[in-house]
């Protein structure tokens, strides 16, 4: 009985190698795109929820709350406008009498790269202030960027500063904070 000739089908070794090579190139390209997307997501996440964003938010909030409770005309700046002291009311909602003196003081200033806030009591009879607390309001402040403003004979105060996670590389994780508040009375 003659042997039946059967046709063998399949891939040659060369075809297989070429296929694997092409598949590898495509896989590397796709993984590059995915890695880049992941990096972009992390950057965006840090941009929205990162340290400097939280610091900027807290700094604006603290500055706003204290200055809106402060009495106009009590703002004192130092020579280069890098510290601000105000006298404010502990209960501004109960203080409608413009002649009633404030009972608290607050001072914003820079310590290395931290924006600090000292608070304490103010005795309107003696003019003596007594510090009772200090807090770090914001970190990562670019040293020379912090400036305050208190226009003469007006009721507003302003603050500007740049927060930068890594100033050495001029990173994307930086923000220039501007805020202004009207004083209480």
């Amino acid at each position, binding site marked *: 009985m003659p042997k039946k000739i059967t046709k063998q089908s399949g891939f040659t070794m060369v075809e297989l190698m070429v296929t694997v090579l092409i598949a590898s190139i495509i896989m590397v390209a796709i993984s590059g*795109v995915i890695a*880049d*997307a992941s990096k*972009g997501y992390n950057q*965006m996440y840090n*941009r929205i929820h990162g340290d400097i964003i939280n610091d900027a938010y807290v700094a604006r909030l603290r500055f706003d709350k204290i200055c809106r409770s402060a009495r*106009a005309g009590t703002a004192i700046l130092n020579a280069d*406008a890098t510290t601000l002291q105000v006298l404010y009311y502990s209960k501004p909602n109960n203080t409608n009498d413009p002649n009633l003196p404030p009972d608290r003081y607050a001072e914003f200033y820079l310590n290395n790269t931290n924006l600090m806030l000292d608070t304490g009591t103010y005795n309107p009879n003696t003019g003596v202030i007594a510090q009772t607390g200090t807090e770090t309001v914001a970190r990562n402040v*670019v040293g*020379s*960027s*912090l*400036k*305050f*403003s208190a*226009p003469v004979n*007006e*009721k*507003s*105060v*302003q603050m*500007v*500063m*740049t*927060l*930068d996670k890594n*100033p050495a590389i*001029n*990173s*994307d*994780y*930086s*923000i*220039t*904070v*501007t*805020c*202004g*508040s*009207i*004083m209480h009375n």
Partner: protein
Amino acid sequence: MRHKPGKTRSGLTLIELMLAITVIVVGVLGAMMFRYGSALEARKADIQVGAGRVALLILEGWKGAIGSTTYNPKTDISLSGNISISGTGPYTVQLTGGGMNTSYSASLTRLDGATHDINGDGFNDLGLVELTVTVTSSLRPLILSDFVRTN
């Protein structure tokens, strides 16, 4: 390699291959444009937030000046550092620092309540004055307004 006569060879033609590559390239370009677009929109949002803060800074300063008709953010808000306000109206507000270098143009429009209805009740409002701040960046303008009582 010899082939039996009359038997056709199967496989992809060059045209088919080129077509497939073109389709893939268009798809990849589309995906890349999507990512570029999202990064661009995030940057635009950043600029627009900055515009809002500039507008608020000017408005708050003006309210602190009790609605002064001679209010000038360049001199009244004497902030230095990474913000500079220049011009005589419209004012140019430049924010710098870190990776940020954005310029805004701010126009101020005052409205006197003696001759205008400011609070929208159908009557003129003597003693009220309104300021509208239009801050323009590389994007569409942002308009904020507020009013104060001057007496």
